[in-house]
């Protein structure tokens, strides 16, 4: 599937956020259940690690509860929430990369499994999975928002708080990385 997953429409989500701003717990519960699967995918793609996704989602939704009254309707609810998620995820990536650097100095990483042992029909899948992990958080975010959430480049620029040209440049480098990874494998 390429494109937006089926979710509540924007008007419904705006109404939910307004109720959350009025401290309506039932509305928050509903909003959480709508966004959790979407955030899980998005955050995992940015932090490249499922382990941290739940913590990041927790932080994102806590920020939504606290700051719901600041949502002014200038953007779509999903753009607003993904922008929060992107900032939180980047923060986690920075913290984690510092921690990992310290650990790697003291340890030797396990070698990656060879693609030779993977059945033929799964090779492309395995390649893509591995190639996507080589993308930077910025590039991974753009790829994920484009192909899973069906965002336009203008909407991605809004989430990342950057220009549309920056989004295109990130995709340009993402393509280059993916192409390189393909030629290696």
């Amino acid at each position: 599937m390429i494109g937006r997953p089926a979710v509540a429409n924007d008007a419904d989500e705006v109404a939910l956020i307004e109720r959350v701003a009025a401290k309506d717990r039932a509305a928050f519960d509903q909003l959480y259940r709508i966004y959790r699967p979407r955030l899980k995918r998005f955050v995992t793609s940015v932090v490249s690690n499922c382990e941290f996704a739940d913590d990041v989602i927790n932080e994102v939704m806590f920020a939504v509860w606290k700051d719901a009254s600041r949502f002014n309707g200038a953007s779509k609810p999903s753009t607003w929430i993904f922008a929060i998620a992107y900032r939180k995820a980047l923060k986690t990536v920075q913290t984690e990369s510092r921690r990992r650097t310290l650990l790697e100095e003291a340890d030797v990483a396990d070698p990656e499994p060879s693609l030779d042992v993977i059945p033929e029909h799964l090779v492309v899948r395995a390649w893509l999975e591995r190639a996507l992990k080589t993308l930077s958080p910025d590039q991974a975010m753009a790829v994920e928002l484009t192909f899973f959430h069906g965002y336009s480049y203008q909407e991605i620029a809004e989430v990342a708080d950057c220009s549309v040209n920056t989004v295109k440049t990130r995709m340009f480098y993402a393509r280059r990385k993916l192409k390189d990874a393909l030629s290696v494998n």
Partner: protein
Amino acid sequence: MNIRRVRKIMNGRDDAGNYQTDVRELLPWYINRTLDASEHAQVAAAVNSDVTCRADYELWKKVGEFVGTDTAAADDCELDLAYLMARIDKYEATQREQFAVPAVPQVMVKRNLFATMVAYAVIVLAVVIAPVPTDISYQTRTSAQPTPAGAVRLVFDATLSAAERDALVAAAGLRLLGEPTATGVYTARAQVGQRDIEQRVAALRAAPGVKFAERIPAVQ
């Protein structure tokens, strides 16, 4: 104007006849169908006639199909949600403590008992002795509370559901502030600006399910 620039604008190709990077960089959004008609047509032409562009298209298509597949396993979120709600409870409790009015110490209450009784006596005397004014102005019970500038007071029909109520308020570009008063009066505020507020209030007044809608002046 430079001939290269003109050529680029006309057909998106450079001197060698290759499609410009600009067009190729739109491929991901060509695949997810979010480009406008003109961009879409340009990219479609490039994909159909340019080998490099076609190769990039195939690459992105593969990536798109892989990323676009929802592989998420069923996720039990109840525990995380419960944890989050507990965190929110704690946060709200802290907020309430910060903004709570400190309780009056018991000693102070006893000490002020005499003064309170005197005050009551003065009030009673004033009511009995004072002449009755001829021009009495009445206010609603809720008007005794401070009202934000340009706020709107609303009373809804009891048969209206919460969702219908919220939809009516949102449609008028308003947002309810907190809970209703004991008499069921809601206070709402314009989400963006105060423009056309009178018309919005009038529309609310005319809407079925709205028993009362009134804009309160900022200074009462």
